[in-house]
């Protein structure tokens, strides 16, 4: 419990210090532009597919390649030591330093040395470690740990750096960046000359040469590897590649994806004991396991070791941008940090941060090694739940209630009546659905309604309205099954009604299998796979029995669930897996169906005056299903003028239970960013294709400006069709 309290406090502290978050937002925006420019003329998808294949082969052949590396390194005069854990690695360096009578080690950047807490171990043995990477030196002087893999001191400002440098130098230094860098250049130069040992990391361990590769910008690694008499290489075993060509391919991705550089200032390839002051240098290569073998052996998580440590998953992460790397991570931060922390430090250390991922998949979209970080994090969250539980509320909600479909649905119907005292009419739309503006208890208000209105549960869910809807489709082109999803069923049934209007106008009949249940994602994202599997079976059966041509969703998370997760959840059940696969092949988002199957944008002719709208891409629609062109085409062809908001595909902060139960404070900040970008367009209608995003946007935008309307694409299309009549 103490652990959890400390974590919560650190989240609140980070949110209370908006300066860091502002800086990370500016960085994130600049990064996206720099990265796009860096990949101009190159095929990122093709490059990352190739890198993933290289890394997968290395995983399979790792024992053989490691032996080859060691043989070749030794042939070139290197001494190689295999360390089972970071303690063995530290002990080796300390023993070596003592043998040499070494008092000072000049270090260039090495994340695995952070993982090993090497500096602390050296200090305890009376050996001084001088960090020479500027960011690492700043962090060392501050007695902190890096908050970013590529830019360790990204959380600090020049005033703080000037204070640290002034204190160390014993003289006043002004907070001017150029002057501070010059000071570091002058001050650290003597460390290389005085050091007895130079220690570097390695970006590559090249099996067929026995050499290492270093990718750097400042030039300090070159000095650490050149001036001192002894060179120690500290590297994780996952840095292995087969040959120089593999390594070159990585250098084409790493700087472009890390900082938007085509190449770093220096890439240094060192094999063996090169000359030092007329003699042969002593080179020691320490290869560290430290949990990597276990990670390689984990089927569900092994892809994480494809990581080339570019830090991009942090750069684009809305949670990282909100709270920074000291909260969202341990030694390694952000999405990859969650996974590495679990394996290198233990699941208990990763317990809190596995829940801190909002599931927006922005990291998955930019990962140069094609790691499905979100999938692995969900798996770990499930492991955490098995080990430590998912909490009483979720346990009752998922296990006792949701698995029993009629109980679940009757409870929601009852809730629609019970909530009446706290609901009120929507200011912007008097006839529209009621909303919840205040909750009676103060502590709930802070997390829930102080910053957004919550939607009320609809008086009549979609499932109770369906049979009363008359569909005038004589000879339907297709019969489609509608997977409604809880958001549209109980909160926004009008979206389902709109969908039927739109589809009917294209001569498509809608079927609603009543036995369908929740897609199970809320349970699954909370780490309850058992309930997830149970719910998948219920819906798979209902839609198989319906015998329809397609299955359509108006919630992108449901689309992902039916299309991908049902198949995976039921893969080990022979009687279910074929059915799930058959449904998967027929399932798509409603916008994608309209555009890609029906070619609707060619048939929808604009009517009436153009309406200005802005479009918010739902995370799971764009990055989960690759659908973002389709809704824009549909809206444009039905007479809407789409004005793009900044970062239209950045998460709205919803994240399902994330914004209600686990991290409402972080959600609040992410939503604030989204509201700002919407307000900046000056447009009064926000379209989106996700009921989850609608809950978030209607509530928060409504609180900020009651004249702005947020609607599902299907609602806007239905309205256009009405106007046409």
């Amino acid at each position, binding site marked *: 419990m103490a652990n959890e309290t400390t974590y919560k406090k650190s989240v609140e502290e980070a949110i209370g210090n908006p300066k860091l978050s502002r800086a990370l937002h500016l960085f994130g925006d600049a990064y996206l532009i720099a990265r796009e420019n860096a990949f101009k003329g190159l095929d990122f998808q093709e490059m990352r597919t190739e890198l993933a294949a290289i890394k997968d082969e290395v995983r399979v052949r790792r024992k053989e390649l490691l032996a080859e590396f060691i043989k070749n390194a030794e042939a070139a005069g290197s001494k190689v030591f295999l360390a089972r854990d970071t303690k063995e690695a530290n002990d080796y360096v300390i023993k070596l330093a003592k043998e040499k009578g070494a008092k000072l080690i000049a270090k260039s950047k090495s994340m695995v040395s952070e993982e090993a807490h090497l500096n602390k171990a050296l200090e305890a043995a009376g050996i001084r470690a001088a960090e020479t990477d500027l960011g690492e030196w700043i962090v060392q002087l501050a007695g902190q740990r890096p908050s970013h893999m590529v*830019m360790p001191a990204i959380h600090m*400002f020049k005033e703080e750096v000037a204070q640290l440098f002034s204190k160390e130098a014993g003289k006043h230094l002004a907070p001017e960046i150029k002057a501070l860098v010059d000071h570091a250049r002058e001050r650290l130069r003597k460390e290389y000359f005085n050091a007895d040992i130079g220690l570097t990391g390695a970006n590559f361990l090249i099996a067929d040469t026995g050499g290492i590769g270093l990718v750097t910008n*400042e030039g*300090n690694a070159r000095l650490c590897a050149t001036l001192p008499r002894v060179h120690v290489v500290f590297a994780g075993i996952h840095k292995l590649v087969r040959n120089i060509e593999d390594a*070159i391919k990585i*250098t084409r991705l790493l700087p472009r994806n890390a900082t938007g550089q085509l190449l770093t*200032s220096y890439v240094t390839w060192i094999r063996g004991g090169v000359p030092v002051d007329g003699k042969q*240098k002593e080179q020691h290569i320490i290869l560290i396991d430290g949990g990597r073998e276990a990670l390689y052996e984990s089927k569900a998580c092994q892809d994480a070791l494809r990581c080339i440590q570019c830090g991009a998953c942090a750069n684009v992460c809305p949670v990282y941008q909100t709270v920074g790397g000291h909260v969202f991570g341990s030694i390694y931060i952000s999405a990859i940090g969650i996974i590495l922390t679990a394996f290198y430090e233990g699941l208990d250390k990763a317990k809190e941060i596995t829940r801190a991922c909002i599931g927006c998949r922005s990291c998955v979209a930019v990962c140069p090694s094609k790691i499905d970080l979100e999938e692995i994090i969900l798996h770990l969250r499930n492991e955490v739940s098995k080990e430590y539980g998912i909490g009483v509320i979720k346990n009752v909600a998922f296990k006792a209630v949701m698995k029993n479909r009629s109980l679940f649905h009757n409870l929601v119907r009852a809730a629609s009546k019970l909530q009446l005292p706290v609901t009120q009419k929507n200011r912007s739309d008097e006839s529209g659905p009621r909303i919840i503006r205040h909750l009676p208890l103060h502590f709930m208000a802070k997390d829930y309604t102080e910053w957004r209105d919550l939607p009320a549960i609809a008086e009549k869910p979609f499932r109770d309205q369906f049979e009363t809807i008359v569909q005038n489709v004589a000879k339907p082109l297709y019969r489609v099954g509608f997977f409604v999803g809880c958001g549209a069923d109980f909160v926004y049934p009008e979206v389902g009604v709109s969908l039927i209007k739109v589809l009917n106008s294209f001569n498509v009949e809608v079927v609603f299998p009543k036995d369908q249940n929740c897609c199970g994602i809320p349970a699954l994202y909370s780490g309850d796979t058992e309930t997830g599997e149970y719910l998948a079976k219920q819906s798979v059966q209902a839609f198989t029995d319906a015998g329809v041509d397609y299955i359509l969703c108006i919630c992108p998370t449901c689309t992902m669930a039916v299309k991908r997760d049902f198949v995976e959840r039921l893969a080990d059940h022979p009687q279910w897996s074929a059915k799930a696969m058959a449904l998967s092949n027929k399932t798509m988002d409603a916008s994608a169906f309209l555009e890609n199957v029906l070619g609707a944008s060619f048939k929808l002719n604009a009517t009436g005056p153009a309406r200005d709208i802005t479009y918010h891409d739902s995370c799971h629609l764009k990055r989960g299903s690759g659908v973002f062109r389709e809704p824009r085409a549909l809206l444009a062809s039905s007479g809407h003028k789409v004005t793009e908001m900044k970062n239209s595909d950045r998460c709205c902060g919803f994240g399902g239970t994330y914004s209600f139960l686990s991290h409402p404070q972080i959600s609040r900040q992410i939503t604030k960013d989204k509201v700002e970008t919407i307000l900046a367009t000056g447009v009064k209608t926000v379209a989106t294709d996700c009921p989850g995003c609608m809950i978030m946007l209607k509530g928060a935008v409504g609180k900020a400006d009651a004249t702005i309307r947020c609607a599902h694409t299907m609602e806007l299309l239905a309205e256009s069709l009405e106007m046409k009549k």
Partner: protein
Amino acid sequence: MTENSIDRFIESAKRVGAEVLRIENLPEAAAYIAGKAQGTTLVPETPLAVRHGLRALLAAAGVDVFGKSFREAGHVPGAGVTFSNFAMADTGTVVLESTDENIRLATTLPEKHFVLVDPATILSDNLAAAAPMTAFHRDPAPKFIAYITGPSRTADIERVLTIGCHGPRELHILLVDGISSDLMEN
């Protein structure tokens, strides 16, 4: 290689802050260096430097060529002058086989690095370097090969790009025809 690659190389190298010039011959390059280099200048005696009499050319142009062991040249010598093995057009990178320690000292310590590149050794891109890079490693001897792309840089304070962190603050790339088209020597 092709004019196309040369143009692309010049553009890429300039974009990362290198000075790039096409110069008629080595004496003119020496004159350019003499105009820019200040203080002690490290000029490694590599096979190409010996063959082209580089030290003498520079000294004649007025460069203060350091004659003793490079480790005695102080912590921050004024300049370093080297040849290169080859270059890569897509990233504006020069490649120096730097196993000889003097090449490393002359390219890491000084304020300014002047590098002489034969345009015939410009490869179209990084992937094309896989062959010569593999060739360097054919024998099992120790090797130190450096890719250099622009001057030393950092963005570690407030993500502001700052030139001249631990390596040279200036990189001058002088393209001179007829130095050597052999990618294996510098």
